């Protein structure tokens, strides 16, 4: 509050009181008494007039004074004039006042007083000493004009100026700073006291002093300097980017007396601008950038666009963008494109274009509309990234996929043919050797019959090989349909089926509680069939076969195992077990095709699980597998 007064204190240069006296004397000579009293009346009606003794104690106050100060006349008389002090002005002001009047000079200035009720009023005050015979002031006569309205307006303006974020500075024509608002303090780091009266040049960086002289030159001619961007130096030496506009200050006589400057700190904006420019530069290097009118006629194309399209810029400008059409895309694509962008939305897609020389290039294209004042797209900006290589790779992948699909089809028809055609001759061999046995029984001796038996046994084995090979290839092609499987129930069903197929065998099954599995029930069943058949087959030399089923569960998978007390295998061949046609036993001891475990592995692998085997020769074998539990609840 105490600093809301003008930073520049206006003070009339004190005139010689003798001059006034002379004027008054001259006046009193010319004026009649009536004239004089009229003058006083008029003064009394507009001004606060008072008289104090040499110490400032009030000896007279007119009605206006009483009215404005809100003290009664008896309250005022004899009181020191200090009772009206607002306390809002600096003591130096009053020191200066007393120094002037006590030395016989008239003082004039603006004073803020406080009335009896605590309200404030501003007065333009003139105090003239009345000198005694010794030439020293005996009394002081004060004339005060009420300027509260004007001062309040000034205060409002000052507070507006000070609350502005902009730096608002005034200076005289020599460049000396006259006023300096809070915004200027914040922006440049100097307090008002530090810079008022100093040259504005302190803000200019070394190379820009001339700029300030040049601006002042224009101001002197009464010209306004419209907004421009430049640099200034802060108190701490850092440079800032600012935007300036400078107007001349005219005196009431219309003469240029100074300049007012409004400045904005645009350092941040500049950084953003530079970032944007950097981005655009980088974009310009990597992308094809163009602009068209609302019909697609090219208004601008960057050098990259020119380079890739192989048209020169003059060839492109004014042409419709459709000259680059490759004919590769459907009408619907362009319909969708135009519908999107003419609706004010951004379109993005991959487009194949044709360059001038007839070669093609692919671009990942984004087209953004620029809306006009009526809200409809006026122009379109396109940014295109070259993706020809990517598209070529994609095409190659497509080709490979097609080939792979064809190969799979071939394989399918191959196994189809195998299943049809390989069986037929077997059937003939088996059929006709049987017919031979039936029709020529009397002509064949035992040796001959044995030979025919060998033929039939071989065809039977070959038939099984074909069946299992087909089953193996079917697993590879089959899609798996996962569901929750009650493994205990499945194991027990499979086991009793197999046990019934092996009458006369003593087989014990230990089946504990098993975790549920997530898998294709037909395929998982096949796994149990193969593992349990193996366990039954390889325990044949044992008097009593014991098969233990094991089950456990972790967070993400279920584990199962089939443990038998059979002949086992040499662990060094463990990794060969799961290969197609891999057998560790000769056909005489244990019959088999060598496909069962390969099928097990294929099924488990397809489910995302693992399968492994542990054994010691003659000490039984354990076949284990895991099945992932993904998507299974609880």
């Amino acid at each position, binding site marked *: 509050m105490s600093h809301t007064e003008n930073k520049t204190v206006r003070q009339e240069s004190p005139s010689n009181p003798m001059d006034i006296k002379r004027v008054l004397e001259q006046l009193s000579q010319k004026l009649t008494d009536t004239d004089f009293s009229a003058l006083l009346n008029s003064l009394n009606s507009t001004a606060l007039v008072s008289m104090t003794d040499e110490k400032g104690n009030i000896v007279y106050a007119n009605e206006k004074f009483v009215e404005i100060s809100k003290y009664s006349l008896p309250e005022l008389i004899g009181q020191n004039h200090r009772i009206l002090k607002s306390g809002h002005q600096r003591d130096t002001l009053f020191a200066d006042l007393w120094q002037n009047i006590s030395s016989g000079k008239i003082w004039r200035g603006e004073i803020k007083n406080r009335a009896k009720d605590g309200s404030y009023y501003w007065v333009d005050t003139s105090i003239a000493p009345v000198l005694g015979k010794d030439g020293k002031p005996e009394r002081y006569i004060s004339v005060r004009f009420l300027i509260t309205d004007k001062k309040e307006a000034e205060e409002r303006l000052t507070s507006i100026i000070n609350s502005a974020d902009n730096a608002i500075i005034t200076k005289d024509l020599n460049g000396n700073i006259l006023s300096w608002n809070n915004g200027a303090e914040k922006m440049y780091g100097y307090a008002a006291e530090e810079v008022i009266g100093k040259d504005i040049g302190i803000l200019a960086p070394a190379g820009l002093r001339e700029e300030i002289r040049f601006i002042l030159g224009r101001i002197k001619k009464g010209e306004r300097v419209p907004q421009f961007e430049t640099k200034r130096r802060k108190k701490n030496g850092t440079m800032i980017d600012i935007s300036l506009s400078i107007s001349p200050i005219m005196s009431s006589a219309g003469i240029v007396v100074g300049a007012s400057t409004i400045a904005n700190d645009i350092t941040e904006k500049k950084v953003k601008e530079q970032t944007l420019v950097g981005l655009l530069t980088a974009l310009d290097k990597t992308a094809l950038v163009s602009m068209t009118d609302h019909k697609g006629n090219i208004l601008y194309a960057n050098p990259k666009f020119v380079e890739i399209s192989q048209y020169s810029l003059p060839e492109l400008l004014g042409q419709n963008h459709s000259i680059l059409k490759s004919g590769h895309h459907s009408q619907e694509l362009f319909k969708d494109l135009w519908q999107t962008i003419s609706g004010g939305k951004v379109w993005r897609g991959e487009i194949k274009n044709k360059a001038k020389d007839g070669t093609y290039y692919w671009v990942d294209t984004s087209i953004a509309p620029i809306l006009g004042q009526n809200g409809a797209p006026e122009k379109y900006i396109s940014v295109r990234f070259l993706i020809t290589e990517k598209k070529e790779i994609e095409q190659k992948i497509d080709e490979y996929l097609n080939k792979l699909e064809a190969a799979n089809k071939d394989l399918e028809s191959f196994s189809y043919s195998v*299943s*049809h055609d390989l*069986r037929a*001759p077997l*059937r*003939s061999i*088996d*059929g*006709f050797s049987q*017919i031979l046995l039936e029709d020529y029984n009397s002509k064949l001796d035992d040796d001959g019959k044995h030979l025919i038996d060998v033929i039939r046994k071989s065809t039977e084995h070959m038939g099984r090989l074909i069946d299992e090979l087909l089953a193996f290839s079917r697993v590879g092609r089959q899609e798996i349909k996962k569901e929750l499987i009650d493994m205990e129930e499945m194991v027990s069903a499979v086991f009793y089926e197999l046990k019934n197929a092996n009458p006369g065998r003593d087989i014990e099954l230990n089946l504990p509680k098993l975790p549920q599995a997530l898998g294709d029930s037909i395929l998982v069943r096949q796994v149990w069939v193969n593992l349990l058949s193996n366990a039954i087959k390889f325990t044949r030399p044992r008097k009593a076969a014991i098969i233990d089923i094991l089950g456990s569960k972790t967070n993400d998978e279920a584990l199962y195992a089939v443990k038998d007390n059979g002949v086992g295998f040499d662990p060094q061949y463990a990794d060969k077990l799961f290969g197609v046609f891999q057998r560790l036993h000769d056909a005489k001891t244990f019959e088999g095709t060598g496909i069962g475990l390969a099928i097990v592995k294929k099924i488990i692998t397809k489910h995302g699980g693992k399968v492994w085997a542990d054994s010691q020769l003659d000490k039984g074998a354990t076949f284990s597998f895991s099945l992932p539990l993904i998507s299974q609840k609880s």
Partner: protein
Amino acid sequence: MNYNETEILLVEDNPNDVELTLRALRKNNLTNKVFIVNDGAEALEYIFATGKYEGRNINTPPKVILLDLKLPKINGIEVLEKIKSDPRTKMIPVVVVTSSREDSDLRKCYALGVNSYLQKPVDFDNFVRVLSETGLYWMVFNQPPYSNQQ
């Protein structure tokens, strides 16, 4: 042979399988009214009384057609489709007898309305059993949808 008296139409291109089939049917004395065609095209001509079989009476259908799938010219699936999509022939019982046990073949045949689907066993004893019993079933036990025209 009078092809109007056919009771079993055997569509089979493999002469060995023809011989084995006939031998199986002979077990139940069912061979006397078997008519054999060796490819899909001939099968269709026979069934629809066209081409080589123009003079045949289409209204005297066989009691059953034993149809192999893998056939020269026109495959068994197509033959089945033509039989089952023509109102004049769709009621003739068709038994597919094939080496294949492929799921896709099974599904296609049943979708087209096959009456039965048999896989030819490789093992001759089984083969004889399956074929002779099939013959007996369709010739003796099964009631055809139409009265015997003879």
